[in-house]
């Protein structure tokens, strides 16, 4: 019943920097903000932190664990890791390190920045020049460069619409749900920017059928968690979020460009592992925080989580409250109460982890769900993804 090792593991601290279009701070300073806050929140003394976990990013540079160790004067690190994306992988790696006894208290972080490749506005800012070139671990980018580097995720959405009749209204339900929840999250970049379904449907399609509203908002921001064993968590001040299961899901076709249509198969592998490992089902969940780097990615995650492949459209319609502009699955399960990447801002899904911990602690303020005991968090896409089930300790 653990993340894979002999020790039961818990998230005991959370922290984040400001989330904004221009923090006025470097990507490194943001990482230090989040890690410091997570350690302070956990109640673990600085000298007891002995593990550090970060990730490299799919498309843009971030800071490695050595930067954080030096920047916060952490002097007793016995385990460090810089893993594959997505952002939740920094957490799943930390879970395994603590479960296996490689370290006792791991801090896991991710830091995002509005680098110069993100937009024309960012290119005009001399403080936003990125330190290196394109990221291409699949080694295929030259093969599609003549097409202006086509985004396979968009083509996957076209195919989904063709096969299953998915419409812009269905994507709009995901977007508007997340934007409405962001109105209740004071840290969210879209905290004060309402969006209705009518607004969504009127937005120009910049990559049909997707609009800018379907894409997560680039921001300056970082987040972090502190992980230890459930046994040690009992001596710390916060109610722990116990890890019931964590997993990745990769399957045959994993290339962003040429095998863009295999995401569901990868998500299926991940979800089946979570359910089998935890002995739980989707009906046991009290909230689901679904990755939404693009709304179309959330669509297929919902299909995998609720076992409704090809039926996401009807499932969303059945879950949609038009008056509230929110989704409620199976009559009681909300999605991404912090606003997701689409509403809170793009820390590449790390916010989904932090919100699950807040809800399970009972510290989500006006967003708090009654009796939140179990949360599903899924993160990333094909071929880089991670998922976990957390339980209120």
């Amino acid at each position, binding site marked *: 019943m653990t993340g894979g090792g002999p020790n039961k593991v818990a998230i005991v601290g959370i922290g984040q920097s400001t989330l904004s279009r221009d923090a006025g701070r470097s990507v490194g300073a943001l990482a230090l903000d989040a890690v410091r806050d997570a350690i302070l929140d956990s109640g673990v003394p600085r000298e007891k932190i002995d593990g550090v976990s970060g990730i490299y990013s799919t498309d843009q540079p971030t800071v490695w664990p050595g930067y954080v160790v030096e920047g916060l004067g952490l002097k007793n690190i016995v385990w460090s890791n810089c893993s594959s994306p997505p952002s939740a992988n920094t957490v799943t790696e930390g879970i395994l390190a603590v479960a296996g006894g490689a370290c006792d208290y791991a801090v896991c972080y991710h830091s995002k920045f509005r680098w110069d490749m993100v937009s024309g506005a960012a290119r005009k800012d001399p403080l936003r020049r990125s330190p290196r070139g394109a990221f291409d671990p699949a080694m*295929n980018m030259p093969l599609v460069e*003549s097409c202006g580097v086509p985004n396979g995720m968009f083509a996957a959405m076209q195919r989904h619409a063709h096969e299953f009749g998915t419409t812009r209204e269905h994507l709009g339900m995901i977007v508007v749900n997340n934007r409405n929840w962001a109105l209740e999250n004071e840290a969210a970049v879209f905290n004060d920017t309402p969006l209705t379904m009518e607004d969504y449907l009127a937005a120009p399609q910049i990559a049909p059928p997707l609009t800018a509203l379907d894409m997560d908002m680039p921001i300056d921001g970082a987040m972090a968690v502190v992980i230890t064993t459930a046994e040690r968590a009992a001596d710390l001040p916060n109610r722990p979020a116990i890890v019931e299961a964590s997993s990745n899901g990769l399957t045959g076709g994993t290339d962003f460009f040429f095998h863009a249509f295999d995401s569901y198969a990868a998500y299926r592998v991940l979800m089946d592992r979570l359910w089998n490992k935890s002995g739980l089902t989707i009906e046991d969940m009290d909230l689901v925080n679904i990755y939404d780097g693009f709304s179309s990615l959330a669509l297929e995650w919902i299909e995998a989580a609720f076992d409704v492949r090809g039926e996401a459209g009807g499932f969303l319609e059945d879950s949609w409250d038009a008056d509230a502009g929110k989704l409620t699955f199976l009559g009681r399960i909300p999605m991404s109460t912090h606003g997701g990447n689409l509403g809170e801002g793009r820390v590449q899904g790390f916010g989904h982890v932090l919100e699950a911990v807040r809800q399970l602690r009972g510290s989500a303020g006006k967003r708090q769900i009654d009796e939140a005991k179990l949360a599903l968090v899924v993160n990333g896409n094909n071929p880089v993804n991670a998922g976990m089930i957390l339980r209120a300790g």
Partner: protein
Amino acid sequence: MTVTWPTRMDHDTAAYWQGLSDGKLVLCRCKQCETWIHPPRGRCPECWSDDIGHQSPGGQATLYSYLIQPTAPKQPPEVIGWAELDEQKELFIVAPVEGMPLDNVEIGARLTLGFREQGGTNLPVFRTGDTK
């Protein structure tokens, strides 16, 4: 625009780029189990053999999905197709599709491979219809 293709080449992709400079689409194909492999790889994902040969497909394909976007800065948008070659399920070439109106892209349309010169080499494109 001046581009010299490819921007990067390795042991697996060299035959692909050499083929294009000769005006042909050359793909990897396993000599042991005859699986077509694209993008190019040094080992067969099906039978794990490293006996990888190179062949040209017939050039007939079906449009599986698409995007609409410019292929270069300051150029008008085009249909970028995922062309599923007749040789094998989900064997995709990603390339511009010529002759298909942007407001009436038809997934499932038949396509034929062609080439166009760009930045000093030939690059694959697809044109609508069967020619064979």
